[in-house]
């Protein structure tokens, strides 16, 4: 294992050299507590006499529930109580459905009611004095099932004889949308060649954060309010789901979190279990604690969207100019639509990928199957679509005997075309994709590729190079939900921060976000310190999230690559307001005008006369504790709340047209693989990741996100998968079977960057962190390149374990049956 990094210098700054904190690799504020084991994760919090929750889960993929008998469990020593689906159906309403009909008709409760639809679905819950006791008691709950036929292949879900999961919907096709932009027929008429690809498959996996889901839930009888100390990463969404279902206002649900052990989108949809915990806390009048077991996480939570691309046709000129494509995307949502069918529109943020495709037709079909429900997973829905566009580029290049590097450069949207409007009205804000590709190729020694290929050949290995280019679209316009369901009343986005100057001069920042390792405390402090002219140590950023802090809004949370835009935009707005108030107050005290005052070195002082200065402490003390005699009209609180609202319009529902995200960070990855043709075992021998997220507030933190996303992609490319057997059992329900990358699996990595500042954000930043899909695309492309001399198989799956490579080596013609080229 070795590493070269071409990212910028990583000096740790001890003292302010002044200029700007932003742009520097300052030490993380989070680290001191975390390296000492002093972080507070939800499972670290205890309450007097709390009970432990254990869920009884379905052993069947599809079955009617005839009866649930909890009596033996209730008699078990140490058991405090139980909860069943029958109670849930009485005490709550089904969760609000995002989908238009027929998906809108699903009746989703926090426990299975009447029927189970996947192995691992919660059926009942028991609370006991100890974790072990709760698990023992759960064994005593008798559930009588009547098994039903199950469906676990989305491609069969619409067959006439396929079992229907949800009678209320009457079909397994819960959502469908036909997208048609540009002149697709014209593109095919203009084409020299049409490349047809019968089926491509994006595999089911997820990012498996090391900390599973969970919560400590308390119910306050006096106020009717629940406090949820939980690692849910999108409390705004959880509240919207939970409040109506529980028939309470959102203020009755207080979400609290400090440290979260990874999320990657997988902790957005824990609202069903949280509702069950709330009901139990109220019923038993006792704090209850739920910590999800690893197997429960794997079998029941947050799988990434599995997707097929069927009957794809690509219109192309002989020189590799891409004119348009048609395809059908078949998406497997699993058994419930917990965040879906938003995946049916999120992909459209990056409709043409990085390319100048102007004519696109896509029929998106989402079906339900007897598998775990999907939910956002790092790169959510864009990753699947971008994998498809990258596969198309490489397959077309290969079939037309063109160089994939040249085809990319020919078709990439160019730097001087930015901001670029896509065929569906999205605005790519800035970027230079060809330059990023050059940096990546330089990093992996593209010039020497031929000699390296020859050298590998001498050693009996097949060497290949692959490019993966992706967009990390960030800051959602939630108006895109209306393209899923025109009746929805969501649009835009928001995030909140408060910044105050306290009595003794402490600067206190609160965020609406729920970070899971993204270093929000650090980067927020950098922005604040720059504006107030003070040191980072002067800025206290509260750790975590608490909806009592009044620093959240409807879309608050940490998801979808947006903190550097929405979170820091709110921090900047609040801090600038505070700075204005500090200048105003200092002006009154010093007998000057606000314009005469500058903030520097922890003081408000007269420009040109640093002797006339008030330390921040004096300002804080005057307003908070010594304010007699101040002018009546002095509008200064030194406690500023700012709601950042990005500039969005509501998309055009009829045309499915409009700007769906504010920023487009970009990634170009390059992988060099060597395959052993005897076995199919391959190794990544060289790897480069080039990122462009606009202005970088903290380059080291940005690089850390790039590294982590890359590692997750490499795991998904080769090892990570959620396969099911015919009975609907997940075959990788723990870390024995689900192989995530370990330290020895990591290839040598080189990182690089360019900075194309966003013209649309207040700091020039772009949200980032989800660009890892590039690794999957790059490995697929590299394998296809390496196998080229061996019968020219096409790589048709995002997941390529060694046995699949071996199959392509042995029977290259099998994969070639998927592709045809027609001249027009």
């Amino acid at each position, binding site marked *: 294992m070795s590493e070269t990094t071409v990212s910028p210098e990583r000096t740790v700054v001890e003292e302010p050299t002044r200029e700007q904190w932003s742009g520097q690799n300052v030490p993380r504020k989070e680290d001191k507590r975390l390296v000492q084991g002093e972080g507070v994760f939800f499972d670290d919090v205890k309450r007097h006499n709390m009970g432990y929750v254990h869920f009884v889960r379905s052993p069947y993929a599809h079955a009617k529930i005839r009866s649930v008998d909890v009596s033996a469990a209730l008699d078990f020593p140490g058991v405090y109580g139980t909860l069943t689906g029958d109670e849930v159906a009485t005490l709550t309403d089904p969760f609000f459905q995002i989908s238009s009909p027929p998906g809108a008709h699903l009746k989703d409760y926090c426990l299975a009611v009447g029927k189970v639809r996947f192995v691992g679905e919660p059926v009942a819950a028991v609370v006991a004095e100890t974790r072990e006791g709760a698990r023992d008691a759960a064994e005593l709950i008798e559930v009588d099932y009547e098994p039903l036929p199950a469906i676990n292949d989305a491609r069969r879900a619409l067959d006439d004889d396929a079992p229907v999961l949800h009678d209320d919907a009457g079909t397994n096709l819960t959502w469908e949308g036909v997208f048609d932009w540009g002149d697709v027929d014209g593109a095919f008429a203009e084409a020299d060649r049409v490349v047809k690809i019968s089926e491509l498959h994006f595999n089911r996996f997820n990012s498996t954060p*090391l900390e599973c889901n969970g919560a400590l839930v308390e119910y306050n009888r006096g106020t009717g309010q629940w406090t949820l100390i939980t690692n849910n990463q999108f409390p705004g969404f959880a509240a919207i789901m939970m409040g109506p279902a529980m028939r309470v206002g959102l203020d009755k649900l207080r979400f609290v979190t400090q440290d979260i052990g990874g999320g990657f989108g997988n902790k957005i949809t824990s609202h069903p279990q949280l509702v069950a915990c709330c009901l139990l806390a109220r019923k038993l009048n006792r704090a209850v604690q739920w910590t999800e077991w690893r197997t429960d996480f794997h079998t029941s939570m947050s799988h990434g969207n599995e997707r097929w691309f069927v009957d794809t046709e690509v219109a192309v000129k002989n020189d590799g100019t891409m004119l348009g494509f048609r395809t059908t995307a078949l998406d497997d949502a699993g058994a419930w639509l917990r965040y879906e069918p938003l995946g049916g529109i999120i992909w459209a943020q990056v409709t043409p990928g990085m390319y100048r495709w102007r004519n696109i037709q896509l029929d998106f079909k989402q079906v339900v199957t007897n598998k775990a429900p999907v939910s956002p997973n790092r790169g959510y829905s864009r990753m699947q679509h971008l994998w498809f566009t990258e596969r198309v580029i490489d397959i077309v290049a290969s079939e037309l005997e063109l160089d994939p590097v040249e085809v990319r450069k020919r078709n990439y949207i160019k730097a001087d075309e930015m901001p670029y409007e896509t065929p569906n009205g999205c605005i790519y804000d800035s970027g230079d994709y060809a330059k990023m590709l050059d940096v990546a190729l330089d990093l992996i020694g593209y010039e020497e590729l031929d000699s390296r290929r020859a050298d590998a050949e001498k050693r009996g290995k097949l060497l290949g190079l692959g490019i993966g280019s992706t967009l990390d679209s960030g800051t959602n316009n939630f108006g895109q939900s209306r393209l899923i369901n025109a009746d929805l009343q969501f649009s835009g986005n928001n995030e909140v921060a408060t910044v105050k100057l306290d009595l003794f001069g402490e600067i206190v920042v609160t965020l609406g976000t729920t970070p899971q390792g993204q270093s929000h405390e650090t980067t927020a402090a950098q922005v604040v310190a720059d504006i107030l002219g003070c040191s980072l140590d002067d800025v206290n950023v509260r750790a975590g999230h608490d909806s009592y802090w009044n620093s959240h809004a409807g879309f608050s949370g940490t998801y979808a690559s947006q903190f550097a835009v929405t979170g820091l935009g709110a921090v900047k707005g609040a801090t600038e307001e505070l700075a204005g108030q500090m200048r105003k107050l200092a002006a009154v005290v010093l007998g000057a005008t606000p314009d005469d005052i500058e903030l520097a070195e922890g003081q408000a002082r007269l420009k040109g006369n640093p002797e006339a200065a008030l330390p921040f402490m004096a300002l804080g003390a005057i307003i908070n504790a010594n304010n007699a005699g101040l002018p009546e009209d002095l509008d200064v609180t030194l406690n500023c709340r700012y709601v950042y609202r990005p500039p969005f319009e509501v998309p055009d529902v009829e045309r499915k047209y409009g700007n769906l995200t504010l920023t487009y960070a970009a990634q170009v990855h390059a992988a060099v693989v060597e395959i052993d043709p005897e076995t199919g075992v391959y190794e990544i021998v060289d790897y480069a990741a080039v990122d462009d997220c606009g202005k970088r507030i903290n380059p080291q933190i940005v690089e850390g996100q790039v590294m982590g996303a890359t590692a997750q992609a490499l795991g998904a490319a080769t090892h990570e998968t959620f396969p099911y057997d015919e009975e609907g059992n997940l075959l990788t329900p723990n870390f024995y079977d689900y192989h995530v990358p370990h*330290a020895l699996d990591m290839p040598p990595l080189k990182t690089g960057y360019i900075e194309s500042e966003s013209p649309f954000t207040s700091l020039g930043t772009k949200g980032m962190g989800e660009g890892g899909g590039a690794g999957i695309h790059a490995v697929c492309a590299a394998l296809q390149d390496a196998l080229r001399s061996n019968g020219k198989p096409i790589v048709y799956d995002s997941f390529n374990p060694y046995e699949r490579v071996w199959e392509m080596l042995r029977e290259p013609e099998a994969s070639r049956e998927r592709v045809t080229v027609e001249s027009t």
Partner: protein
Amino acid sequence: MAADRLAPAQASRVTVEVNGTTYEREVESRRLLIHLLRDDLDLTGSHVGCDTGNCGACSVILDGTLVKSCMLLAVQVDGSSIETVEGLAEGELSPLQQAFSDHHALQCGYCTPGMLMSATALLRENPTPSDDEIANAIQGNICRCTGYWNIVKAVKAASGQEVGE
């Protein structure tokens, strides 16, 4: 579970020294060491990530040997001495902890305590490990945030060796 409800076969008295402090507790015979540490002693720095001994978030040093505390029963450590992440810093961060921060070897911080204990055990055995030796030593610790590159670098830096930029 309240000790007075337990039959003798179900419960044992365990005496254990953790980070220099001696604790005596009545525990269920089936209680795991990680739960003794986290729930009975309130030493919540060590974490649970997998329930199967794969992830290493619960790694501690038991009588000088690195172990996964979810793979041991509490009763097995009677009379032993344990080091956990809470004991690493003495007033200020240890060089290893400082190197983790300097080299951005942690993001969410959930795997970090186990990672630090594995690296501590390595550096005692091998004060100047190579990259491969470091990767090998943390092979039993899963990190989902960093991709390990910066962790390897941090451990190497803590050993006083040169690391790249």
